[in-house]
């Protein structure tokens, strides 16, 4: 689920049925109230963290922000005059991965591709849960806590009995730590982006560890570009769409 607030704009929200626009116009006071609530009345404490574009909250809730970047040299130092909030609330849908035969013999590298808000993370979480419950050692690289909803070491979302969660670690450190210390059968990671992810996935792949990952893109061609080095890694590519409803499987390519 996602809630969108824009100063002076209409309040809208996303559910499994798609976007709904409400007639309510978000006033400045309402916007400030929500902003202070999500920052626990400590805006100063998070403006520098917002250079990544989002604020992680408890339970895997993620608040995306848009505002004015404050530059220091050629880097963004902080964000001020915040004008939009995108509050994403993770939810679990059991059984969305039932089309995959996941048992103790499942042995695939799977890539889930779709544009934002099509259900990638929900599918990823369900796969992680089933693999884990099938007896596989699953390590979840959950930088923002969205997959597991981890909070103070406790998972608020069901990711299975045999899952270990690396929360808050930058990806390039998380891959190394996972392989070195946690002996995974599967590494689960959300939203591949950048060279560190490519290097990490290759490291896992060549290390004999299976990878289940998600990637933003329209279709399987998203893999050819910055991520072409990963083309040989994935045995299966699942493309999701939000029409006719979120989570619709557009393609299931076994290579």
């Amino acid at each position: 689920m996602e809630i969108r607030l824009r100063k002076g704009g209409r309040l809208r929200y996303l559910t499994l049925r798609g976007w709904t626009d409400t007639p309510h116009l978000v006033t400045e006071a309402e916007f400030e109230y929500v902003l202070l609530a999500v920052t626990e009345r400590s805006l100063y404490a998070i403006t520098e963290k917002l250079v990544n574009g989002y604020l992680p909250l408890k339970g895997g809730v993620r608040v995306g922000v848009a505002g004015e970047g404050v530059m220091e040299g050629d880097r963004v130092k902080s964000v001020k005059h915040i004008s939009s909030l995108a509050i994403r609330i993770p939810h679990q849908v059991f059984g969305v991965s039932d089309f995959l035969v996941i048992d103790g013999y499942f042995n695939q590298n799977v890539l889930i591709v779709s544009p934002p808000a099509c259900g990638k993370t929900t599918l990823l979480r369900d796969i992680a849960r089933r693999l884990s419950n099938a007896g596989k050692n699953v390590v979840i690289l959950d930088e923002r806590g969205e997959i597991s909803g981890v909070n103070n070491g406790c998972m608020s979302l069901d990711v299975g009995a045999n899952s270990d969660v690396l929360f808050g670690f930058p990806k390039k450190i998380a891959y190394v730590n996972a392989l070195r210390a946690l002996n995974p059968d599967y590494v689960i990671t959300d939203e591949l982006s950048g060279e560190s992810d490519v290097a990490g996935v290759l490291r896992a792949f060549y290390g004999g560890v299976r990878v289940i990952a998600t990637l933003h893109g329209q279709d399987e061609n998203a893999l050819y570009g910055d991520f072409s080095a990963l083309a040989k890694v994935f045995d299966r590519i699942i493309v999701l769409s939000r029409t006719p409803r979120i989570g619709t499987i557009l393609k299931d390519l076994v290579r």
Partner: protein
Amino acid sequence: MASVFVGILAFFSASLVGMWLKKRSIEKWKFYRAFYDYLLFAEEKICSERMPRGEIDASFKSDSKEFLAVLKGENAKLSLKDQELSSIKEYLETIGTSDAEAQLSSLRGKAAEIKRMLDTDGEKWRKDAALYFKLCVLVGVALFIILV
């Protein structure tokens, strides 16, 4: 005999009024002193750790129960005038609503203002506190002499 009793009563009543006035002035001074300490504490914690507002409030210690009550948003009986109190409450409400740089400069500015106030008015409140008490005791003695 009755006049002696009334005289003693008048003396103690005047002394109690003096003590109340003294306490009020001292509490007011302690309140502003705690407010100043809080501003410095918040500045330090935000500057070094970016500590969230809730944690700053929870970890701040002071001997002014009145200020701690205001910080918690409780309705306590205070030695401050309504206007003074509402301006302090208004300022406390703004802490946490701006980015770090703006927040720190606001805290520094407010701390300087309160420090100046403590150096001038604060000293006066403390001197007045002693003066009020002595005056009331003198009035009490005078009443006792007149009545007896």
